[in-house]
């Protein structure tokens, strides 16, 4: 498949944000990208015209009930059949920030075997509490299964921003060790919070900005096609989005967010 044939769908509902940044980033990579309101996709029944589906960041439905919960259940009720087909055909799905919360609430992540009817994890209130907007470091942990990060060398440290108040990734206490083992076994762990040198945060704030279990910042499903992360790669795409661009005299043209979004495009061009 040629790059220009690839179609990316960035879904939008009330309260989502960064959809325009995501569209611009994907278009910069040479693929067609549409921002579509979820109601419109329900009306047109055209989800399967797209090769990549993106749930962007934000505060969908005002984060009522729990962050991402309403959109997750809504999409399963209205587009469940199409979404299931999308997943079964191994078409990539990306959830950024609130999008990650949606994927977890919908049972699409971690999804150890198949789509789970109930959430198997949670992205709950930050510890320390409060909205946290800062640049953090991520260490790439995946061995190559995740179709978004397969081209990033394991152990590479990336610099991207987070902006959320409910990003603490947790499993149920009784099963957290067992589930963590499964994440490693299935190669589902993708990003962990670390410092500039790549040392894991070990839960310490602000290196780990939300108190996530095992410093987890991003995971994929067992097939590697569904990927969710709390940080915003689309906000670290261009050089002028970097926090230190006014202090630098020379910078690379793109930030670390590019390699994440580029990964899935290269995967599609090679596989299809």
């Amino acid at each position: 498949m040629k790059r220009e044939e690839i179609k990316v769908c960035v879904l939008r509902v009330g309260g989502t944000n960064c959809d325009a940044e995501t569209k611009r980033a994907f278009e910069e990579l040479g693929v067609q990208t549409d921002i579509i309101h979820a109601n419109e996709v329900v009306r047109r029944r055209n989800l399967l015209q797209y090769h990549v589906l993106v749930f962007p960041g934000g505060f969908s439905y005002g984060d009522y009930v729990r962050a991402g919960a309403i959109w997750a259940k809504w999409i399963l009720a209205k587009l469940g059949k199409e979404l299931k087909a999308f997943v079964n055909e191994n078409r990539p799905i990306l959830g950024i920030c609130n999008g990650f919360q949606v994927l977890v609430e919908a049972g699409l992540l971690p999804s150890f075997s198949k789509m789970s009817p109930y959430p198997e994890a949670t992205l709950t209130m930050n510890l320390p509490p409060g909205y946290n907007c800062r640049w953090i470091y991520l260490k790439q942990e995946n061995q190559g299964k995740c179709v978004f990060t397969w081209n990033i060398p394991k152990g590479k440290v990336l610099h991207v921003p987070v902006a959320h108040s409910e990003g603490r990734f947790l499993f149920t206490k009784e099963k957290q060790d067992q589930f963590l083992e499964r994440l490693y076994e299935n190669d589902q762990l993708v990003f962990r919070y670390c410092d500039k040198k790549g040392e894991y945060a070990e839960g310490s704030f602000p290196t780990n900005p939300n108190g996530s279990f095992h410093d987890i910042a991003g995971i994929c499903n067992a097939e590697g096609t569904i990927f969710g992360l709390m940080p915003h790669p689309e906000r670290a795409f261009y050089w002028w989005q970097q926090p230190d661009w006014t202090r630098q005299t020379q910078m690379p043209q793109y930030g670390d967010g590019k390699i994440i979004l580029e990964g899935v495009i290269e995967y599609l061009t090679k596989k299809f």
Partner: protein
Amino acid sequence: MIKAFKFVKVQTETMRYCVKIEVSLKPGHSDPEGETTARLLKELGYRVEAVNVSKVYNVVLEATSRKEAENKAEEMCKRLLANPTKDNYAIVIEEER
């Protein structure tokens, strides 16, 4: 030829139930909102030991029986209102009319 159908209306008596659903964090699950509130209450001079935050949904629904109302509320918790990873829930049928 036009056939005439006779419609028989099957009426099931439904009642309106007021259901209180309380969703709270599982014991042992850290509650940053409660901890922050407790800290401030202490600073305001109250002898507060702990604060646990929970959410209450007052749902008015129609059901044919009290049992059905309870089952529906249970289903709502499982499908939307509670995340089994971190939440417990309690259902109380408060009123039927």
